[in-house]
């Protein structure tokens, strides 16, 4: 009886060992499979990063400063903003308004229920490079030349020669001076 029990126990141990070994093997195989997946993903990341770098550089090249300056000057006729186009602050902005006349109708006020997570009529502007929303001040930074008063006249069709002749680089309030 003792012998039979001991034999059964031996078989049991062997079985347990075999199961453990199988499980260990299976687990190791699984771990390495995941590792190789990670490696594949890494390789893909590297390829994508490189492609991103290449495309980003191409974007920068096509939108280079000289190109933009030429577009702004020749195509759109933009000029640097003048002193009177700047405002000191809210106070100066408010001073531009005129007081309401006594007989003017009351301003129309529209009720609106607040909507949670409302992004407004337009979603945020997204950077073409990073894909992240661009903050308001970023947009201002990116535009070195702003619209000038001369915008309306340029809406009228003009020939390229006329547009090129708009500004003489040396023009300005030319004063009669001598050295």
């Amino acid at each position, binding site marked *: 009886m003792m012998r039979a029990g001991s034999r059964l126990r031996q078989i049991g141990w062997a079985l347990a060992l075999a199961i453990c070994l199988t499980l260990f093997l299976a687990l190791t195989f699984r771990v390495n499979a995941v590792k190789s997946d990670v490696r594949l993903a890494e390789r893909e990341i590297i390829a994508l990063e490189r492609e991103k770098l290449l495309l980003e550089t191409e974007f920068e090249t096509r939108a280079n400063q000289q190109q933009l300056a030429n577009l702004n000057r020749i195509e759109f006729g933009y000029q640097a903003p003048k002193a009177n186009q700047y405002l000191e602050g809210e106070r100066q902005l408010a001073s531009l308004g005129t007081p309401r006349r006594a007989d003017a109708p009351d301003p129309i006020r529209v009720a609106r229920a607040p909507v949670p997570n409302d992004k407004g009529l337009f979603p945020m502007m997204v950077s073409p490079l990073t894909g992240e929303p661009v903050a308001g001040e970023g947009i201002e930074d990116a535009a070195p030349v702003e619209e000038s008063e001369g915008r309306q006249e340029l809406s009228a069709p003009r020939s390229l020669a006329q547009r090129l002749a708009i500004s003489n*680089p040396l023009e300005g309030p030319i004063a009669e001076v001598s050295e």
Partner: protein
Amino acid sequence: MTALAVSTTISHGRATLSGTRQRMLDDARLRVLWVALIFALVAAVATLRIGYLGLSDQVATSTSLEDALLPPRGELTDRNGVPLARAFPAYALWYNPKALGDPDNPLVKSPREVAQELKIIFPALNVENAAEKLAAGRPGYLMRRVLPEDANRVMAIGELSLELPRETDRHYPQGSMAAHILGYVDREGQGRVGMEQVLNDQLTDPAVRNTPSALSIDMRVQGALEDELGRGMLATNAMGAAGVILDVDTGEIMALASLPEFDPNKVEAEDLLQSEEMRQRGEVPTSFNRVTNQVYELGSTFKPLTVAAAIDAGTIRDFGRTYDASTVKVGRFSIKDSHFIGDNLNVAETLIHSSNTTTARIADELGSEKLRRTMIDLGMNERPYIELPARGHPIWPGEKWPRLRNMTVGYGHGIAVTPLHLASAYAAMVNGGVWRPATLHKLGAGEAPKGRRVFKASTSSRMRQLLRMIAIYGTGKNADAPGFRVGGKTGSAEKPGGGGYRRTSLVSTFAAAFPMDKPRYVVIAMLDEPKGTTASSFQRTAAWNAAPIVGNLIPRIGPILGVRPDETRDIDISDLKPLIGGEQ
């Protein structure tokens, strides 16, 4: 007997047969065994290999993510992080006619068919040119930069001779912009000319090249400076132009341009070497930096420095005092003004009308030792302080200045310095009197060098008033951008040559600072040999060409640099205004 014999023969024969059969069977079994053994061995090896692959971690040795993404050469950016030079691994399309092993037919299809297939992938490709290149059978590039997905499509054409080697490409996205600051990378991968050469070790060091190196320049300001200078240069038909914008409090260079430029993406031999014809025409190669390497006599722009030295030394105390404006005679030389300004001029009028005679008298009264000391303090006797390798040595008058030399240096002749020297000197003159070396590295808050004091703070504030007055009433009127409180001085110096000065070739400079009530930036614009054209009203002097360039430039760069135009603000000049009675 016979039968027995026969029978014996048969039985013997049977026995032999069965023996043979047995042998053959054994052979066959042995062979099967061998085959089975070999199969078993192969299976065992395969199982072991699978086990090894499954269990071992070290099978596929791939480079780590960081190593793979580490750029082959560090990136250069402007002060806001905009990339100005970057290296990336790219594919190129290389034609190798030997790849197929048949020298007569390097391609499977006809060259024209291949060119047309390439055209589908690269719409910008010229089919005729490409077909000609393929038919010629010479190895060469068909495309320099190819996207990975396009590279796959090229592989799908199935031509062995179309190779796609991986190349490290140094690319300057802004093209020729800031070429003199950036420099370029030669075929050995070494930086040349600009910051590529200066930062070569840092850009190639694997430990630090992952972080981009930020330069002090602002890409937008640099673009505006080059744009305005380039247009001014074309309008006046000038030989070259130079410009620099300097932060007066830190010495950081916001923009630095020398025209004509070269394209660092495509450096040609004539960009680097001066040919015999260029030497005869007096031209320099485009890689030559006019701002830091070329020295010029910068003429009247030195007059404010002389006046500042005289105010500092105490020889000018009374601004109402007038100086004799008649011709100065020293030995057989005489110093004259270009036109009659007045019999007697005070200091303000001297600067506003740019009088040589009265400036010479002010310098004479100051004395050569004091003027020389000031010039040394402003760094005029040594190469300019900047990181760039190309730095020109000034033509310095030496130890003992005779009386005449002292007078000529007073109005910017007999001393030749680079435009950068002038920019640093003007920065010291308007920032409260402290001279600081110019730098192309971006400085953080509080990192500005201490500098050395050249002028008293009171002298500096006086000079701000005087410079502003030149721009309001004098030769700098054309640079007075409304609302930006510009102050500055013109200078038109004749170029030396042929044993004297050539009256026909000028160097016209405008040195300015803005806003004058709290100076932030110095702007220098210089034109080399401008001609009188319709655009410049047939004038060649700085008031007509260099000053309008600055006048157009400042409204473009001011808002970017944080200076808002304001017509309600200005520096107080009410105490000096009565001195120029007839001017208002």
